[in-house]
């Protein structure tokens, strides 16, 4: 191919070889579909001379239109159906990209990582103010994502702060329930009074709630929830290793072909992991699924909705209501009033920030006695760590290309026990939640 180039041309031009190969690759392939005239010729028809294919030749024009209009004969635009690119296409595309130059790789990887992190960050409302506005507006314009763009972000930020503070204040111990108040729900009472524990036992005791005489509200002895500290710190179920080591080495470019197959497999693995709370599975699958959707910058316009709400599983109001209901405390009339007061000070009841995918306070229902199931929302997650992990470090993308390490293990619940129906784990101590100092 290059033999006719002069030595001067070729001197110091090793880069020309890949370029020439690109040109060659682009200019080879299957033979194009011949025109009707050529097809006629191939089938043994006589070669017509002159301007037979010109539009002015009425006889030929009519003949060529017997089976439909000749291509481009009338100079009209061709309307073609656009079809979505299959996943396999991305696989091959990424394989091809893997063969590209280092800088091209870095640019693509950075774009992909930036798209991933920016989309996730913007959806979470955690980008800096001006960036949040710009990124949010851009993503809203090109994708189905609903991202806070500015002022509304304040609501999200505020809600994030509240939830963060609440979680940070969750203690690891739960006060002891006094013997005078029976436990309800799924707690198992063992040993002497006052030392009840939440265990892994499936022996569920549902005591009957006796009539409790409450002389005066301010002097009511508050319930004490058994101390379950020792069993809250270790997760009974671990996320699959693929979640933590999806991209095992920071700053390196993963094998794209492998990654394309790896992510769906990891999602399947997460979903198949028994005992994981539904919200954790949903969170991990949601994030991984989104990563799959952003494997090519070209596909940003077709991103699936990033539902980060799955990563914020602590529904404070619902969780608290149900914990209280489970302990029988919520059945006391004043508790409902107290919770109403507390949650109204949080601004709860509005259902969180509309349109952001977040719903920190859930669909709070003050009909406490009706909540007899403890939702998975009671599983606390270190939201700050989780979001930091998901959104990555925008300012510290690997300088040599590649993507940041993706480690979703930070989205794992920070404390679970077992034995509480409906949770798949347990209930954290709640005495640190702002209204519990009333104790």
């Amino acid at each position, binding site marked *: 191919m290059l033999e006719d180039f002069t030595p001067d041309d070729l001197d110091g031009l090793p880069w020309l070889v890949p370029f020439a190969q690109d040109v060659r690759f*682009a200019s080879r*392939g299957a*033979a194009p579909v011949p025109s009707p005239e050529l097809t006629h010729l191939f089938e043994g028809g006589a070669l017509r001379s002159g301007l037979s294919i010109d539009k002015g030749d009425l006889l030929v024009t009519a003949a060529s239109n017997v089976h439909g209009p000749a291509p481009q004969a009338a100079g009209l635009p061709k309307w073609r159906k656009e*079809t979505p690119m299959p996943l396999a296409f991305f696989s091959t595309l990424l394989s091809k990209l893997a063969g590209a130059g280092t800088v091209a790789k870095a640019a693509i990887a950075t774009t992909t990582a930036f798209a991933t992190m920016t989309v996730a960050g913007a959806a979470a409302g955690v980008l800096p103010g001006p960036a949040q506005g710009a990124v949010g507006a851009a993503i809203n314009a090109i994708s189905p994502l609903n991202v806070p763009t500015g002022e509304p972000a304040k609501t999200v930020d505020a809600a994030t702060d509240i939830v963060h503070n609440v979680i940070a204040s969750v203690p690891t111990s739960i006060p002891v329930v006094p013997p005078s108040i029976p436990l309800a729900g799924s707690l198992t009472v063992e040993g002497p009074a006052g030392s009840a524990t939440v265990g892994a036992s499936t022996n569920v005791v549902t005591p009957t709630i006796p009539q409790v005489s409450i002389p005066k509200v301010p002097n009511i002895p508050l319930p004490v929830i058994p101390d379950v500290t020792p069993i809250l710190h270790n997760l009974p179920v671990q996320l699959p290793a693929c979640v933590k080591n999806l991209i095992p080495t920071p700053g390196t470019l993963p094998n794209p072909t492998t990654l394309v197959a790896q992510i769906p497999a990891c999602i399947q693995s997460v979903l198949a992991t028994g005992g994981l709370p539904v919200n954790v599975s949903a969170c991990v699958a949601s994030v991984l699924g989104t990563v799959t959707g952003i494997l090519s910058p070209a596909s940003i316009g077709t991103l699936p909705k990033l539902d980060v709400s799955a990563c914020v599983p602590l529904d404070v109001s619902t969780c608290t209501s149900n914990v209280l209901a489970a302990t029988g405390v919520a059945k006391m009339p004043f508790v409902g009033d107290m919770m109403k007061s507390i949650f109204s000070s949080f601004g709860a009841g509005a259902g969180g920030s509309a349109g952001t995918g977040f719903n920190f306070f859930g669909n709070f229902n003050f009909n406490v006695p009706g909540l007899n199931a403890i939702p998975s929302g009671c599983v606390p997650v270190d939201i700050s760590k989780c979001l930091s992990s998901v959104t990555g470090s925008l300012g510290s993308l690997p300088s040599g290309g590649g993507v940041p390490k993706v480690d979703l293990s930070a989205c794992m619940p920070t404390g679970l026990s077992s034995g509480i129906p409906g949770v798949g784990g347990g209930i954290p101590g709640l005495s640190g939640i702002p209204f519990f100092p009333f104790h």
Partner: protein
Amino acid sequence: MALGHAFDRVLAAARADAGWAYERLYRDLSPSVCGYFRVQGAQEPDDLTSEVFLGAFRGLAGFEGTEDQFSSWVFTIAHRRLTDERRRVSHRPPLADSWDDTYRDDPHGGDVEEDALRRMSAARVRALCEGLSHDQRDVLLLRLVSDMTVDAVAEALDKTPGAVKALQRRALAALRQVLVREGVPL
């Protein structure tokens, strides 16, 4: 996929108006001709390719030469057809964005992935060549796509071999600058 020793026989059959011979010549050379139109950014490379071969087959009686010379001759026709196309397009806004075509269906089936990659490679080549003049791009792509010699390119472009070499040198220098600007290690 050159015809090799069979070329003379195929050429003679085509001159005798044998349909199979026309098809053989078309199948052998049309992919690279179509590819040339593609990397040059022509809007309807398939249609142009058909027109080139119709013209070539009509003029077969006047052609004498080897397979390489036949290839150069066909590419010369192709290049002139491209020049006409450029002139025509310059007077009329494009009907469709060529990059959008990258993602459209391959009307004749085949390997969708490979076809898409091929089109993307063509887009990449076009992007790299955007900084080149028409003449520089023509020289470079004719050399690389069709394997034409400097003399053959000179004949196709109606220039002297010296001018073609100069254009080639400047094209390479410009291309190198584009790559340097993109940060590609050379």
